[in-house]
């Protein structure tokens, strides 16, 4: 499989000498930058898991704002393909005792249902922006699945998927009372004699105020006291959230200067969550994180300010915040500046190859994410998979990303569990090498390549015989994976 070092050097030496076709470095701006529909493509690159021709047609027809409004009204978007799919994964909709039963009966199947569905929804749901928002909140309220599978399946449905485009305070309350969260961050075992600070700390640091949100170690201890008694009912049919006054600290607490008087039970916990959700540090922190996810690794101050302001005015109405971010001037200055995270990359490839690619239930695709460190729900610390591009750029990862592109592009040659790629359905109308390259660039990069890059690809794919060389079956057979793989492993496809 690998070239020996000698062959490798020989090859490079030989080509350097002959140089029949000089390689053209693709160092310019992404071709979509120059496209007339640049703004719409930019919105799609961040608000979907990879633009497809129908997405592009729709946003051009509606205009950006109307398209966003439509996506944010996610429940009104028909999603028949997902409805049909979910019929076969009843565990995702089951009542808690039935989830537990299904996990106990077949852990592997339940795990696959959860994790594979994440990819399937990203690739196929019509509610694309909603699925992006779910991804954001899944990271924000991170809970890894392996040890808490049943709880995670319930949490996924009742926390991010219920409130991703709702109000932040509702989302926070759902998370704070989610059995998986109570278990994962140990609040379920926090008692008055020895409060466990784990959840209290992450609630402020990761979920609401942010590490620089102005709280102290003393505040952490006080919040832990307020939340004593927020635990799980281990006696019932399933470990539901319950408040247990026997282990609650009924004394007075002070958090960030606010007094929580003595003698109050569960209600002071709810007051605390409302207080944190409405705190200016939270408005700023959530705005900052949303902008880092959707816009830029270094969120522009002006946009953080205006979004935090809107957070305060709308009581944390998430769709308003997202719309504001996507309609801001700052957003349109950030074309091609976010590095696709591994799952974004894989799903974007699946969507780009969709005319020829069909997949139903592929364990194999999930394995491909493992060496890239981005299997859904497998990030163990509570801060969630990083959103910052730099976390994902490294030498080993780049090679793995190239390999993913070429491996996926050549799945037409073999049999893969749950996956089929028919190369004849990709760019089916192309009759010459030139047309093939143009259609492939359009399908994968959504814009024509620069002349120099196109000319170089014509020479590479058409063996120097020009762009009018007829596109034969044999050329398709030999060059499909090289053409599609190269476009998907190019620098342009790594950024969005």
């Amino acid at each position, binding site marked *: 499989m690998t070239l020996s070092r000698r062959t490798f050097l020989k090859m490079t030496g030989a*080509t350097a000498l002959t140089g029949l076709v000089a*390689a053209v470095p693709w160092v310019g701006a992404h071709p979509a930058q120059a496209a007339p529909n640049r703004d719409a493509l930019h919105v799609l690159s961040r608000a979907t898991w990879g633009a497809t021709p129908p997405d592009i047609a729709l946003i051009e027809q509606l205009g950006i704002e109307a398209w966003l409004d439509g996506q944010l009204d996610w429940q009104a978007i028909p999603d028949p393909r997902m409805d049909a799919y979910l019929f076969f994964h009843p565990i995702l909709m089951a009542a808690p005792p039935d989830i537990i039963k299904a996990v106990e009966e077949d852990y592997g199947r339940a795990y696959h249902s959860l994790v594979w569905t994440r990819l399937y929804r990203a690739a196929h749901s019509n509610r694309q922006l909603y699925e992006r928002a779910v991804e954001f909140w899944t990271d924000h309220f991170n809970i890894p699945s392996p040890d808490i599978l049943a709880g995670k399946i319930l949490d996924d449905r009742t926390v991010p998927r219920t409130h991703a485009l709702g109000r932040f305070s509702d989302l926070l309350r759902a998370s704070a009372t989610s059995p998986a969260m109570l278990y994962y961050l140990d609040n379920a075992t926090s008692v008055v004699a020895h409060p466990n600070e784990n959840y209290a700390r992450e609630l402020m640091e990761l979920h609401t105020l942010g590490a620089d949100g102005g709280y102290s170690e003393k505040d952490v201890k006080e919040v832990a006291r307020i939340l004593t008694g927020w635990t799980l009912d281990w006696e019932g049919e399933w470990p539901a959230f319950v408040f247990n006054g026997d282990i609650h600290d009924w004394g007075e607490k002070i958090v960030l200067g606010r007094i929580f008087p003595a003698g109050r039970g569960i209600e002071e916990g709810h007051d605390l969550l409302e207080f944190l959700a409405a705190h200016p540090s939270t408005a700023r922190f959530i705005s900052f994180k949303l902008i880092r996810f959707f816009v830029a690794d270094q969120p522009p101050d002006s946009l953080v300010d205006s979004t935090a302001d809107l957070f305060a005015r709308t009581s944390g109405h998430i769709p308003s915040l997202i719309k504001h971010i996507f309609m801001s001037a700052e957003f349109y200055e950030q074309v091609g500046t976010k590095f696709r995270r591994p799952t974004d990359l894989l799903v974007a490839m699946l969507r780009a190859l969709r005319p020829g690619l069909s997949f139903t239930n592929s364990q194999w695709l999930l394995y491909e994410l493992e060496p890239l460190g981005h299997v859904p729900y497998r990030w163990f610390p509570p801060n969630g998979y990083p959103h910052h591009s730099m976390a994902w*750029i490294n*030498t*080993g990862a780049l090679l793995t990303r190239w390999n993913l592109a070429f491996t996926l592009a050549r799945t037409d040659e073999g049999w893969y569990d749950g996956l089929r790629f028919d190369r004849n359905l990709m760019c089916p109308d192309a009759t010459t090498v030139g047309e093939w390259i143009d259609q492939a660039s359009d399908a994968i990069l959504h814009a024509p390549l620069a002349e120099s890059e196109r000319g170089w690809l014509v020479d590479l794919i058409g063996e120097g015989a020009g762009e009018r060389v007829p596109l034969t079956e044999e050329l398709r057979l030999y060059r499909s*994976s*090289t053409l599609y793989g*190269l476009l998907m492993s190019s620098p342009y496809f790594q950024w969005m």
Partner: protein
Amino acid sequence: MLNRRDLLKSFGLGVVGVSPALFPRWIPKLAFGSSATPARVQADGGRDVLVNIFLRGGMDGLNTVVPFGEGALYYDKRPTLAIPEPSTRPLTAIDLDGYFGLHPALRPLKEVWDADALTIIHAAGSIDPTRSHFDAMEYMERGTPGSKTTPSGWINRHLQTAAWQNDSPFRALGMGAMLQSSLRGAVSTLALKSIAAFHLGGREDQLEAIQAAIAGVYAIQAPQDLLQREAAQVYAAMGMLNGINPDSYTPENGAAYPDTEFGNGLKQIAMVIKADLGLEVACVDLGGWDTHESQGGAEGWHAELLTELGQGLGAFYADLQAWMADVTVVTMSEFGRRLEENASAGTDHGHGNVMFVMGGGARSQLYADWIGLSPDVLDDGDLAVTVDYRDVLSEIMLARLGNDKITQVFPDYAPNIRGIILPRA
């Protein structure tokens, strides 16, 4: 009509590939060295390979190197978790000096200690008071407690400021899918999950063409941006790893690495050291130490992690015995854990912790500016930090890595040099 051979030929010659000038100075050995002929790790002498192990989650140092000499001050605070005093019974601490003892799961490290190659520094850590995992790790790895805006990691700045420069793509290696923060910065570093998987895929009959084409589109001959720089590193590293067959690797001296990501990471670092690829620093992580609940004492969660740590370090030491005079391993963790156990039979975030140093710079010594566990000297209920972790790393830089640019690696910091680390012979 083209035939397959013409197709291949045109591919092979059709594009300009990688300039051989990319790797003129590092000609890898095509086999692993063995202890019969150990290459000096750095042929030009003068410095060790540094292996930095980060124990993520906040290791409980007080149950790792147990201050049993504190008596009730330790035992009363940990009624269910404490490690019993050294005795002839099983599952008791392994005595080191009559006051401190190793957790019983760390038996492999006792052998390293007995071989005079393990230094333990207790009550060490970062002086910043944060009890946040993420802030504490970032501060520690960036080398600037209290400042998250430092753009690079301390190891990267060490490489930037070292008197020598080395253009091997294996100069700095981070084991895992993602690069450690300590390695981030201007010097290019390699994140590697598996040596065996480090080659280009795609159609075998067009591999050369694909290799050449990607080299072209990423402009690896004259990289201009970050991604192109990484791409150039991929090519250089692929070229060097072609001589290495990880399947043929047999650890020496009966070393048995745990079959875990951590164990395999250490094994692959050993391979790269023995293959003499120009390695200067390597980072590997062992996570899972956030034992808020059901931590266990001599057995259980924490003990299992220590077993993995001890077996990994023990295997690394045995495997690289002939190299060890030129290798320094140092472990750290973002913070220790609270002295008093919580109601969940676990421990919450604390402060001071244990660092292990193994290899050339170590001798069997337990160093601590120990002020004890009485309530008046605790830092908010936690073991106080009396040795700044930067002091230990500064000593390693000076004594083992030949770099005295401490103020550039740890800005605004004047380390206290205590002579804990042995200078190179």
